[in-house]
């Protein structure tokens, strides 16, 4: 056999999966030999191989399944997640970097601070791109379904009929950013309880909490924040209010508020020095905390009531609207 043919076949099958190589090589070799005939001179061999196209192209014909990192089916979801995680990580990194300038003693001037902020944001966003891409490439490789919204009659009817039931994307993303920052804040407070304090020039700071005691409660709060985070993601994916979603969201809000009240009314957590700084007795402090808790609860209830109104009241209106001729 002509050496050129052997090399052409070898190059072609090198682009194929290991298990197919021997078979394809044997077939292809036989076919090419038939094409060039018995007494083939170099010119004929060259022409035949040129006509067959480049080994890469021929190999891709044998493979047939197009190769890609993130396919067209997944691309929309990929872009959405990339933007979403990008926005969150961008905001959180920026806020934390700027906060770090105030919380730690540094001798950076304003330009160095700006440069450092840009560098942190850039490095964080590079990480986001890398990891989101890797995760989606793996999902795509294993053909995991990433179509978040189901397409059925219900989804069809919900398209334009009740825009008031839509959950604004920006709202959910804002929630996610806020919750991320809050979570990191809790993590900082967890490791350095004394960071929440009254700072005075030339005097020792007065922490709000008794160091150490608050720690387990912070941990609980971090869990609840993660829960809220999960609900916010669910809201973002669903994109519109449904009754179960409303239930989950309201339950999560209420758990958060009641947990806050539970922790805030643990009077032994407060540093007595902190309370006396404002010239308050414990009883006055208790009244303030209780009033604040009540106000918080009322605000949460109002917000839940507003969501309930959106889901139930508007649904009924829209149902009558969508029935033609009624």
């Amino acid at each position, binding site marked *: 056999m002509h050496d050129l043919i052997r090399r052409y076949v070898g190059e072609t099958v090198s682009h194929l999966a290991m298990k197919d190589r021997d078979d394809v090589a044997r077939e292809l070799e036989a076919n090419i030999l*038939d094409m060039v005939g018995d007494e083939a001179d170099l010119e004929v061999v060259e022409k035949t191989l040129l006509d*067959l196209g480049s080994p890469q192209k021929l190999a891709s014909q044998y493979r047939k399944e197009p190769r890609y990192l993130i396919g067209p089916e997944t691309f929309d979801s990929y872009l959405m997640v990339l933007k979403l995680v990008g926005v969150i990580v961008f905001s959180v990194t920026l806020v934390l970097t700027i906060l770090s300038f105030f919380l730690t003693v540094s001798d950076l001037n304003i330009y160095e601070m700006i440069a450092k902020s840009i560098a942190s944001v850039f490095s964080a966003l590079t990480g986001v791109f890398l990891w989101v891409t890797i995760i989606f490439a793996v999902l795509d490789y294993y053909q995991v379904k990433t179509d978040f919204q189901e397409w059925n009659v219900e989804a069809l009817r919900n398209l334009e009929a009740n825009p008031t039931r839509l959950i604004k994307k920006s709202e959910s993303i804002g929630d996610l950013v806020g919750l991320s920052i809050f979570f990191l804040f809790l993590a900082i407070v967890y490791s350095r309880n004394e960071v929440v304090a009254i700072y005075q020039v030339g005097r020792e700071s007065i922490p709000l909490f008794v160091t150490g005691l608050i720690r387990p409660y912070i941990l609980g709060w971090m869990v609840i924040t993660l829960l809220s985070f999960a609900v916010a993601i669910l809201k973002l994916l669903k994109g519109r209010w449904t009754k179960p979603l409303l239930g989950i969201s309201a339950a999560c809000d209420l758990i958060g508020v009641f947990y806050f009240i539970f922790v805030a009314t643990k009077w032994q957590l407060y540093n007595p020095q902190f309370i006396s700084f404002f010239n308050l007795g414990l009883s006055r402090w208790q009244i303030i905390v209780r009033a604040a808790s009540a106000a918080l609860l009322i605000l949460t209830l109002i917000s839940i009531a507003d969501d309930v109104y959106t889901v139930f009241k508007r649904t009924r209106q829209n149902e009558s609207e969508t029935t033609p001729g009624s």
Partner: protein
Amino acid sequence: MEEDQILYNFVTELNRGTMTLCVLASLTTKQYGYSLLQRLAEKGIELEANTLYPMLRRLENQGVLVSSWDTSESRPRKFYTLSDKGKAIFTLLKEQWDTQQMRITSLLREEESHA
């Protein structure tokens, strides 16, 4: 896009489906790769070798074709023919083609007479 390019794309798309039918139709008797290519060329059906060979392999993997190596000649050759499953599929595909072709032809003639 240039007119030629658009036309070329349409023709490619049109061919893509019909080529399978042509290959199946030619494999009611045993053929090896190159003989099949020549046979199709004789009928004026231009199918590139680099399309045909991978196609044969795919059809074999799908169980539409069965193959056997003939090593009695000076060169070994792989012969392909329709499997039972392939015969059944070919019959149905042919019917599909006939119906489709009838409808399309009638549509085209109608348009012509209006034109």
